[in-house]
């Protein structure tokens, strides 16, 4: 039983990472109706940036803050430069543009930093804490804490500030928001910036566990898709609940059914996507899509 609880906590830690990236996808999807396939690569790029900061002697948390600021600015810039021109054209066009960004940013990361695998410093010790017979690692608990804090901050921003109200209004009804004076264009860019910063959080949390390499977020992106689909693609709460439960589910699945350990967890993630789409396409928290004709 001790092992069970250890696996649950470690599943929550990876789940927190999935949840951050899934929430980033949901923020972009809600505001612009696009799934950003480059979200993972943007996070990887930001994490390499953080590595460079640390490598130049900046300690972890200041480097963390600097990276978030850079990721935010990068997200805003990308929206303004490449997404804005295709807004209002077909969704297919916008999706293909994000695929272009995926290829481009992945290539740029390899070009700048090389393909070698690097060790990324962890802000938390891997020392275990003993509770009864179970041992929980401080790193896992720290990752859960950072992910929860990031999500909580965003919730406060969206729920209780005027900017948050503008963000939600621009996402729900851009035309009427424009009429009452919400700068819709900037709200969409802000959404991209926030999503990019949130993705950077997940990147910096996953890098100490899987090591830093240019393709490290490809798998995480798959899990984030699964988490977002499970929670309902348009629901922020769903993305968080979906991410955490997916992390725990896959971890327990891998522990008790050895077929689904290691790389085969990816197949588990794929299976979750397909089962959700077959059984409950709107996800746990999403509303079924209803369109007025």
């Amino acid at each position, binding site marked *: 039983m001790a092992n069970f609880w250890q696996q649950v906590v470690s599943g929550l830690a990876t789940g927190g990472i999935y949840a951050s990236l899934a929430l980033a996808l949901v923020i972009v999807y809600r505001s612009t109706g696009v799934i950003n396939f480059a979200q993972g690569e943007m996070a990887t790029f930001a994490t390499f940036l953080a590595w460079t900061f640390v490598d130049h002697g900046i300690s972890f948390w200041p480097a963390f803050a600097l990276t978030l600021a850079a990721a935010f600015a990068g997200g805003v810039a990308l929206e303004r430069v*490449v997404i804005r021109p295709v807004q209002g054209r077909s969704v297919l*066009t916008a999706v*293909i543009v994000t695929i*272009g960004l995926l290829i481009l940013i*992945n*290539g*740029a990361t390899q070009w700048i930093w090389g393909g070698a695998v690097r060790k990324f410093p962890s802000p938390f010790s891997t020392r275990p804490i003993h509770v009864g017979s179970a041992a929980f690692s401080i790193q896992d608990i720290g990752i859960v804490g950072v992910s929860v804090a990031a999500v909580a901050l965003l919730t406060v921003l969206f729920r209780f500030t005027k900017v948050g109200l503008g963000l939600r209004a621009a996402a729900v009804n851009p035309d009427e928001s424009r009429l009452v004076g919400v700068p819709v264009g900037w709200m969409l860019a802000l959404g991209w910036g926030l999503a990019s910063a949130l993705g950077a959080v997940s990147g910096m949390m996953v890098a100490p566990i899987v090591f830093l390499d240019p393709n490290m977020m*490809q798998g995480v992106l798959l899990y984030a898709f699964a988490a977002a689909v499970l929670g309902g693609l348009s629901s922020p709460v769903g993305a968080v609940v979906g991410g955490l439960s997916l992390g725990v589910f896959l971890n327990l699945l891998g522990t008790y059914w050895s077929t689904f350990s290691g790389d085969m967890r990816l197949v588990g993630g794929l299976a979750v996507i397909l089962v959700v789409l*077959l059984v409950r396409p709107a996800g746990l928290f999403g509303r079924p899509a209803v369109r007025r004709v």
Partner: protein
Amino acid sequence: MSRVGLALRAAAFVAAAVVVALAPRFISSYHALEWSQVAIYFVALIGLNVLTGYSGQVSLGHGAFMAIGGYTSAILIAHHHVHDVWTIPLAGLVAGGVGLAFGLPALRLTGLYLALATFAVAVAFPPLVRKFDHFTGGNQGLILNLHTNDWLYYLSWSIAGGALLVGWLVLATPIGRSFRALRDSEVAAVSFGVSPALYKTLAFGISSFFAGVAGSLFAISSAYVNPETFPITLSLFLVVGLAVGGLGSLPGGVVGAILIQFLPTYAQHVSKQAPQVIEGAILVGVMLLLPGGAAGLLRIAANRSVVHSSQQS
């Protein structure tokens, strides 16, 4: 299509076929192999165009469907000693069948979900191949028969020609009309009795069939398959090739296929990682500036000259 248009198209097809048939007399054997790869990408792009250009869905996992075709052929050849050529249609059918089954859940919602689910397939496929190493040879892969480059060239281009004809035929039937109707306005299509789920899934199935045939040819011409033969970047580069060739133009795929085959070789002179950066930049640039791709450019040029000549008369 008008009778003149049809005649022009037939003439262009015959002329292209003659050029392709005579080309090996003038190029080296190594270049023949490279050009046979172009034909293979062309087949995959015809399939992807049926899906993306004509029915408005996008697949990020066509590399994985090529892999399904490639492994079907490889397993039949290596384990069951079936003749290479006979495995090609079987590979297409297996990939097409998997595509049909897969399209069913993925296409219940908008096309975005298909993009997302196919991306997941592309990422999850290599671990599956490694898992079932009893059939697939795991990381070591399977070794197949060697062929001469000229034989591969003629095989690939005959199949590419056939694929182009089949693609045109499919799109000329009521099925093709339903694809386009769904792409342009799902609501209007439904009110005319077109079932979105049926036709979107069918489009994905047909598209996967082409991918399977291309994957099978790819395996036969490499004489070797392993999990790295069909990386996720292959799926993504196919989307680049599609956009560059032109969404909604089957012959435009040749331009995309040439780009996929030759860009990495030429861009490598800059840096090993340069091809990827250039491919990504091309894709973003084409979508922003030239959504019709190479075929769109031709169409614009043709319209201008038509306008020009009509002004003169």
